[in-house]
């Protein structure tokens, strides 16, 4: 907004632009360093003197890491399926119906966003320990599902709010029952939202560290935790290569979401 006191409005615009670039650089700096280190033949010595995929090769042929990737993959897929199924049903109820306690239930679903993930993970650990499960595969899957649920609910809420219910009425009118209408009309129409939600949930689970640290059982370690233990003791660029792999996979997923539904729509409320 231009005010009478701002003689030269361009100064404000320039300052904002500069601030934005600095902030962007600050955010991208660690990513760029990681990527540089992972292809640098001289470990950790910058600037890089050449290009190598040696570290990537070492990372992707390590039994430990490949196994951890398998764990992260199955964990991410399972948690995403669970979270999206629950989110879809919750959203269906919240978008279509008015009922007592709706605001409270919404707050409950969104609450993982309000609590620091470490605290949330510790709480889950204590909870499962009290129940007698402790850390384990079910606890890990439940933890990840709860963690990604709010994001699924957000994306699917946007999809369902944009969904024109007369499409369902038209299907019912030509003879489709409620279930058939859901399968043949509703789900295909909100497909982009469902795919975006699923991919985002997967990426969040794939990158999660705190929940996995607390809840992963011995012998079933997700990749970020495995990577952390590796970096703690090994001082080489294999860790950086692995980190770069994680970043690249997430980036690809984000591009997929952006193409499908538009990231802006997904992240905004």
């Amino acid at each position: 907004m231009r005010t009478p006191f701002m003689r030269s409005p361009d100064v404000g615009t320039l300052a904002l632009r500069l601030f934005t670039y600095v902030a962007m650089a600050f955010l991208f700096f660690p990513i760029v360093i990681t990527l540089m280190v992972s292809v640098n033949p001289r470990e950790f010595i910058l600037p890089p003197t050449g290009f190598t995929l040696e570290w990537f090769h070492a990372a992707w042929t390590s039994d430990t890491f490949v196994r951890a990737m398998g764990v992260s993959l199955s964990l991410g897929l399972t948690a995403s399926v669970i979270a999206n199924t629950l989110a879809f049903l919750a959203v269906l109820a919240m978008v279509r119906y008015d009922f007592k306690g709706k605001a409270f239930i919404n707050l409950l679903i969104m609450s993982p966003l309000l609590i620091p993930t470490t605290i949330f993970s510790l709480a889950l650990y204590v909870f499962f320990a009290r129940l007698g499960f402790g850390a384990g595969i079910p606890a890990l899957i439940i933890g990840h599902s709860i963690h990604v649920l709010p994001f699924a609910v957000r994306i699917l809420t946007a999809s369902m709010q944009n969904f024109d219910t007369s499409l369902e009425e038209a299907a019912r009118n030509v003879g489709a029952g409620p279930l058939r209408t859901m399968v043949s009309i509703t789900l295909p129409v909100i497909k982009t939202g469902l795919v975006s939600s699923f991919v985002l949930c997967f990426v969040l689970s794939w990158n999660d560290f705190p929940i996995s640290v607390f809840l992963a059982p011995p012998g079933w370690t997700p990749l970020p935790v495995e990577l952390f233990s590796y970096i703690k003791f090994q001082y080489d660029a294999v860790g950086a290569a692995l980190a770069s792999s994680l970043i690249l996979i997430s980036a690809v997923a984000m591009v997929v979401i952006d193409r499908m539904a538009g990231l802006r729509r997904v992240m905004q409320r």
Partner: protein
Amino acid sequence: MKTVADKAIQVEGVCKRYGQVAAVNNVSFDVHHGEFVSLLGPSGCGKTTTLRMIAGFIMASDGAIRVNGRDVTHLPPEKREVGFVFQNYALWPHMTVAENVAFGLKLRKRDKAFIKRKIEESLAVTGLSGYEARLPRELSGGQQQRVALARALALEPQLLLMDEPLSNLDRALRVAMRRELKQLQKRLNMTTLYVTHDQEEALSMSDRVVIMSGGEIARIARPFEVYEDPQSEFVADFVGTTNFFDGTVAGVADGITTVRVGPSLVLHVGSHIQVPTGADVRVLLRPERVRILAAQQEGANVFKARIDFVEYFGPTIRYTAQIATGESLYIETHNNSRAADIGDHVWVNIEPDHFRLIEGRRRRAS
């Protein structure tokens, strides 16, 4: 056929209440086989709610709905076997035109050859042959409307419900589609219940018009009856433009009721209803029934008026005038008659038979 019902739709005492508010209150009407009936009224009058209750998208709070003699009041929409065309077309965006049309037939497990023939037929009848493989978003509004119609017709419903199907089209297309729709309806002898807020649409297409106001039926009649003899202030006001005069009956003689309006205006009304002397009445007069005279005349129902405002509509011109006694008067004439300008004084004449009488004083509209 085990029962031959002579009525395609029977709506009996149907109500829809939301909490304390009645959106539709005790509505009853019938639609005969092959008949085209419109539900007409301003927004919020309950016409769409009524239609949606017949389709089963909304469940009636009270009353009964019968389709071809079968009580469907409590049936879900998929069991009602009525065609429905939506205002926004409601085409399934992930299906092609052919798939949209075929969906209902596939649900009925018809064989492939039958479905193929039915798609061809219904697209041909709506003028969409060749568009089978298009997606809805690749079609214009008018074409989407045709797909919606083809989708409904493919199932050969005995009854077609339409919810303002033309209101999203621009005017020229709307008028063309209106004619086409009406011709198609006559050719197929398709029983149709049609919701609209557009009086021109309702009057030009319908066999009968059901006028609704505030969740209740204000009038059920044929289009010319609705217009020529509104019988109520609401109908007169909603359909077309009307002059209202509040007065008192001064005397009745030879089929002419003399009505005194204000201190000095006297109207001679050829009344078709009996109103005793001294009764309060409202006199209705359509603006196109007022005749502008070429010169001053003597006689009953001849008044001098001053033109205050002129609206040129193309085929017609509407004058807002003030009678010498103070009452205002709308006059509508063909554009080939003598034009008057603002400030002109003209003499006007009204045939006694062109007035309509309603008993009681006019409620001042809020």
